[in-house]
């Protein structure tokens, strides 16, 4: 078969285009560091990598939820600790008041101090975190959950649970609703003690000490719950961090090209391309004089 000049030219151009395409792929791999450009490169591998990347993103979202939850839970724990401290101080006051040597004036002074503790605890139970009431159940942006008129404290929040999804299929309840605090009878016991002091009723004052002790223990118990939850959030976050480290190790191996290999391949393609260019140049530089 006769090999014409045009056949040679077409063959050379075809080889050039193949060389450019190959180089382009290698260049693309080098610039992105990834040898999985699209699903058509390796569909199964691509699907696997996509699945793991989705898991990675989901884990990152869980970690964000945990961060949000931690802020709420740790603030709650801190406030409960302050309430507990106030109740202990009130109990100490009760011991002093129960002492028969305290005068009526001294009892009145202690009652005033006790009123200070009640106001402080009332203020703490109406605390907010990022603009939302901490102890109101799910009524976080409406009116204050606790209302004090000087003689009684009413809870007007609800028992709703605030949850955050912290791992697949697991929603953690992060709030303590106000009814749990009301169930400790802390306000009732403090107000009773105050009234007993004002009345000079030492028997009632003595009786209140045991009641306050129980309220303090109940508040401590609630605080322990938040402490455990905080630990759980930390542990879950650590596990998610490790999971994502494992996932990124694997995604990296599946996707990222062995750069040494890619560079070697690129250099090999470039040499072939340059050789093809030189050959083409020789062919296309032919002129009539070469045929004479």
């Amino acid at each position, binding site marked *: 078969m006769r090999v014409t000049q045009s056949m040679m030219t077409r063959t050379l151009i075809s080889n050039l285009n193949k060389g450019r395409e190959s180089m382009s792929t290698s260049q693309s791999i080098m610039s992105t560091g990834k040898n999985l450009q699209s699903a058509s490169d390796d569909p199964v591998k691509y699907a*696997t990598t996509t699945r793991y990347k989705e898991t990675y993103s989901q884990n990152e979202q869980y970690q964000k939820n945990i961060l949000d939850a931690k802020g709420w839970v740790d603030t709650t724990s801190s406030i409960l600790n302050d309430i507990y401290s106030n109740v202990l101080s009130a109990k100490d006051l009760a011991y002093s008041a129960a002492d028969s040597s305290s005068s009526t004036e001294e009892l009145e002074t202690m009652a005033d101090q006790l009123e200070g503790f009640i106001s402080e605890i009332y203020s703490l139970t109406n605390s907010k975190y990022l603009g939302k009431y901490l102890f109101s159940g799910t009524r976080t942006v409406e009116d204050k959950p606790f209302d004090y008129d000087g003689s009684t404290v009413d809870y007007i929040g609800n028992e709703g649970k605030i949850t955050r999804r912290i791992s697949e299929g697991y929603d953690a309840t992060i709030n303590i609703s106000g009814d749990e605090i009301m169930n400790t009878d802390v306000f009732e016991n403090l107000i009773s003690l105050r009234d007993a002091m004002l009345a000079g009723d030492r028997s009632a004052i003595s009786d209140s000490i045991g009641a306050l002790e129980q309220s303090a223990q109940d508040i401590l118990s609630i605080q322990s719950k938040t402490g455990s939850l905080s630990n759980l959030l930390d542990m879950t976050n*650590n*596990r998610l961090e490790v*999971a994502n*480290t*494992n996932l990124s190790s694997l995604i990296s191996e599946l996707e990222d090209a062995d750069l040494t290999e890619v560079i070697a391949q690129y250099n090999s393609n470039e040499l072939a391309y340059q050789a093809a260019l030189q050959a083409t140049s020789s062919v296309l530089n032919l002129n009539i004089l070469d045929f004479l």
Partner: protein
Amino acid sequence: MYNSMIKSSSYKNKDDLAEHQFQQNQPLHFRFGLPGFESLREFRVINKKEIAPFAILQSLDEPRVSMIIINIKYLPVQKQIRRVLMDANRITPEKLRKIDVYVILKVSADKQRLTANAKAPLLIDWERLAGQQLVLERDDLPLEYHLNKV
């Protein structure tokens, strides 16, 4: 660097060595999977001379899941990891002597460093053919412990 850290075999006789090598070729059961791969329970540790002291943790459930690992005995951070395993996780020194502890490696984002996950070592009990990746609740053990430049 790592060749100089490889220690000679401490087995009493050839039979012990052969037994250990046989065990090392058996599938390992990871009761809880690995974090991120909780559904994968069966793995093998593949040791090859060409990549020593590194090894490969290969999933038998999902062929595409394999990771490069190294025994902590080759790493300066091994003492810290062992101490945490004994203190915080109540693994006795006797038990620790009977298991191998590995860490999973990865290449850093800038492709310049090899890092090991010292915060979550792999514990392999060759007698029971069981493994577990333990997440250590310690801030002083890093997720990316730098081994060396690649």
